[in-house]
């Protein structure tokens, strides 16, 4: 896109940024004004689905060639899925890797893959810079802080800075460089979470807005408290009045933000557009994605031409139960995920907005190939899905690894040394969303360490 500075939005942006004068990113934030506002129909959204706990990539996308399946099965004899249950993929685009298929629970997604609405990014994970197996073996490869720790690898994925402290995440920084240009008149943050606080959407200026699966939460007592209007007035004053104590100040800042936008959000969601007719599964992930669909549907009322969403599905830490069929098992979680994503795709079609909404998965790490009898342990690289009308789908991006103990990407017990970095994954999404080349280093400070900032899965 060709940048043209929008004066009004630039003014507003500079005002909003004034308090940032000492922040390290302030300089590059100013470059955000270079992001252009586009025509009225211009709209895009990114939807992050985080698979909390570390999804087992080995049982999500599985080699099905004779030799590939054999080494997979040899790596995890007690965990290997029966070969005849795996859903074979037929990727185009010159894919030269091993033949692979999907976990049977992902059946609702297979038609999306086959029809080009979904792509797979193989073996992606946090990297400090590109590394080789030889460097790993020699102990000379720089590694992300605390590999295999849930909390630290969540931080690494979401901050995009695996070997440095960071108080912001890359989606928040995307918001920093796009919100004022695209959403100059919106009272609602560009970054919205239906899954609680997260680092991914924390920016320098961008403050994530929280929704429940039932929308914004209205404080009913503001209208009156125990038969007294004065009580409601006092409540509002207490929740929003300035405070000198820092923790109290943070609390009232949060409350004031909540009260300030609740009416706008609730009003929009209560409108006809807020009533998305697509039926979503009555699961946590299903209902979160339903709320995302509703917020997309009311984007005009919210004056938002760019939206960034975060949802989460937990429970993927399959040290055990990996092959169990109960409601904690991998099969159950993947089924819930696939059904929710398929419903979301349908909703986007119904809203005629599919070309403008890209959904993608993350997870703090993949898992080891080697088994402990009942499950697998913490790993590193994993496979991820990208879904939407703009996706160049039915393809596998990155390099599908050799699924074998002792294979070329084996970091430890068959966990994967990533061959594509989170930076590259994120940069491809950010570029499509409208982040300019000059802003990319603000969003992803390490991107220049990697050869290709555009993996190509988005047109």
């Amino acid at each position, binding site marked *: 896109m060709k940048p043209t500075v929008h004066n009004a939005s630039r003014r507003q942006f500079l005002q909003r940024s004034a308090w940032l004068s000492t922040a390290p990113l302030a300089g590059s934030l100013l470059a955000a004004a270079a992001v252009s506002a586009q025509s009225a129909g211009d709209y895009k959204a990114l939807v992050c689905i*985080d698979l*909390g*706990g570390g999804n087992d990539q080995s049982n999500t996308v599985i080699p099905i060639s004779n030799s590939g399946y054999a080494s997979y099965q*040899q790596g995890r*004899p*007690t965990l290997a899925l029966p070969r005849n249950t795996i859903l074979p993929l037929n990727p185009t685009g010159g894919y030269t890797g091993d033949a692979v298929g999907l976990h049977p629970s992902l059946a609702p997604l297979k038609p999306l893959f086959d029809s080009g609405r979904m792509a797979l990014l193989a073996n992606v994970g946090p990297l400090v810079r590109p590394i080789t197996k030889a460097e790993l073996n020699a102990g000379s490869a720089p590694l992300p802080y605390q590999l295999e*720790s*849930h*909390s*630290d690898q*969540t*931080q690494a994925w979401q901050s995009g800075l695996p070997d440095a*402290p960071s*108080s912001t995440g890359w989606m928040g920084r995307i918001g920093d460089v796009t919100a004022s240009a695209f959403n100059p008149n919106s009272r609602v943050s560009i970054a919205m979470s239906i899954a*609680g*606080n*997260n680092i991914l959407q924390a920016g320098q200026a961008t*403050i994530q807005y*929280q929704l*429940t699966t039932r929308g*914004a*939460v*209205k*404080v*009913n*007592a503001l209208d009156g*408290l*125990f*038969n007294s*209007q*004065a*009580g409601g007035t*006092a*409540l509002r*004053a*207490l*929740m929003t009045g300035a405070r000198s*104590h*820092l*923790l109290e100040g*943070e*609390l*009232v800042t*949060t409350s004031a933000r*909540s*009260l300030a936008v609740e009416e706008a959000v609730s009003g929009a969601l209560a409108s006809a557009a807020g009533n998305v007719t697509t039926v979503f599964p009555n699961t946590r992930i299903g209902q979160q994605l339903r709320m995302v669909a509703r917020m997309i549907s009311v984007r005009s009322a919210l004056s938002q031409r760019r939206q960034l969403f975060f949802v*989460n599905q*937990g*429970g993927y*830490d399959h*040290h055990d139960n990996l092959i169990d069929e109960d409601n*904690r098992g991998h099969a159950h979680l993947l089924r819930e995920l696939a059904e929710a994503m398929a419903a979301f795709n349908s909703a986007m079609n119904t809203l005629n907005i599919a070309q403008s909404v890209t959904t993608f998965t993350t997870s703090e790490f993949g898992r080891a190939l*080697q088994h*402990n*009898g*009942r499950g697998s*342990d*913490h790993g590193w690289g994993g496979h991820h899905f990208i879904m939407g009308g703009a996706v160049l789908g039915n393809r596998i991006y990155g390099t599908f690894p050799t699924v074998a*103990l002792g294979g070329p990407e084996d970091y*430890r017990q068959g966990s994967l040394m990533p061959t594509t970095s989170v930076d590259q994954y994120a940069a491809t999404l950010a570029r499509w969303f409208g982040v300019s080349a000059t802003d990319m280093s603000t969003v992803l400070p390490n991107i220049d360490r990697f050869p290709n900032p555009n993996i190509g899965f988005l047109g």
Partner: protein
Amino acid sequence: MKTNYFAVLLCLAFLSVGCGGSGRPGAAPSPTTGTPPPSPPPGVTPPPAVVTPPPVVTPPPVVTPPPPPAAAPTSVEASRFLVQSTFGPTTAEIERVKQIGYDAWITEQFNTGSMDSHWNYVAVRGGPIGKAPLPVLGQSVNDIMESFWLQSIKGRDQLRQRTAFALSQIFVISMANSALEINGDAAGSYYDMLSLNAFGNFRTLLEKVSTHPAMGKYLSHIQNEKENPATGRLPDENYAREVMQLFSIGLWQLNEDGSRRKDASGKDIPTYDRTDVNGMAKVFTGWGWGVGEKTERNWREGFLNPGHYNAPMQNYPQHHSTSEKRFLGTVIPAGTNGETSLRIAMDTLFNHPNTGPFIGRQLIQRLVTSNPSPAYVARVSRAFANNGAGVRGDMKAVIRAILMDPEARDASKVNDPEWGKLREPILRLSAWLRAFDAQAPSSGEYVGRYTIWNLEDPLDGLAQNPFRAPSVFNWWRPGYAPPGELLRRGMTAPEFQITHATTVASYANFLASVLGGGWGHGDGAIGPRDNYQAERALASNPAALLDHLNVLLMAGQMSASTRSTILPAINAIPASNPLDRVKTAILLTMASPDFIVQK
């Protein structure tokens, strides 16, 4: 386990606190710091659940200098102390602290037993002492909530209860989306264990946690098989990793004051690496259900034996790895059995220089303040290292050091804009329940039951429910800070991890429900004794009413602006309606930032 990352894990840069010790941690666990009392070997059939914890016989430790011989605490000072050390001040407890002073009160609490055991409530009786179980099966999930609230707000052993609650947020198990989803009995037995060991030795506590079947189930090390080279099977690493990362030493080497140690190039130093996890994982093989003989049947199906969740796991030798185990500089020779391996592993973690500052700082955060000074952490670390009588890990010494620290007792800290902590939602509710002597129904189906079953409604819930943290990472990480001013200043504010646009609003709605009609299930709603009799007596004098609430609920920390905001709202209600005046005053007090942030 099944960590449910439903609330995203944010470990912003400062997550775990510092590091400490000398060289490679654990390389030579120093015996010079005294030996903790030996733990009973696992595998011993536990005694029947006890209703009253045995009094701990050791005399009060003397690590902290006695409080200055100042005047007895004032009501405000006593209330502030009780906000830190109990589930909430009451008029009676304030008077008790004023009467005997902080130090004697702590000693008195050390010697006070629990009113009941959660296991007995949930698994034996299915209800409060002397009351019939509900005529419905499968109530254990509700029973444990009732039992938690009963003991937390009515127990005379308030310091023990509050400490157990703090410990439950370090040694986390959860019924939320876990293998314990319907096991209120497991949670009850586990919480009993925390209560019974809250004032014991940390070494014992760590082993009790590690061998409790609820933890075994939650972090999946129950029935964990030894390695099998023929099939490539490795031990499950789940517990091995988390017992180091979360329950003892943390990720980074720490100094005594909680700051991170640095290597020669100024970098943080990890406490362990993946090979340590491999070695530690072997220790946690072969642990299985603790009721009955160590037969193959009991290994597989010991959960069929009654009481299986109330007996420590025992080691089934045929499933325990006897190959060499190396971790943290410790080498357990090949051929060592499960009990001995566990003892060595526990000793290694216990004696690691990180353990005092890592656990001590978190306990300070749970009880007193989110941002203790390094000197405060160091003083608590020293109490952990030596109780004054040469004993390491004496929890009484640690708790006393935390509460009697000059920083904790310094009244001027109330004016420090960085001091204090966000009161977590459960403690806001408990403050109300205790201050107004909330009562369970005296008749009917729910007689004697604190039916506070569900606090999770997103529109008017608390976003926090006992025994239901989203993952082993608790509701928040100790190093969390919300993006913004606090983060820029390098402060931590863990409870803000569940504080955001929707939860600040749902809390206000929650207050309206609680003050409107109490809280609880149907006819079982919990309400104040005598409908706020003491407060109604003050309703004709709103200033006096606020003075009373200020001391009782918020340790005298109500700001002038809060007071001047609430007063007109009370006065706007006719004096002929004292109950609405009282409810308005309480709700607005509890909605004020000065209440929500304890100083």
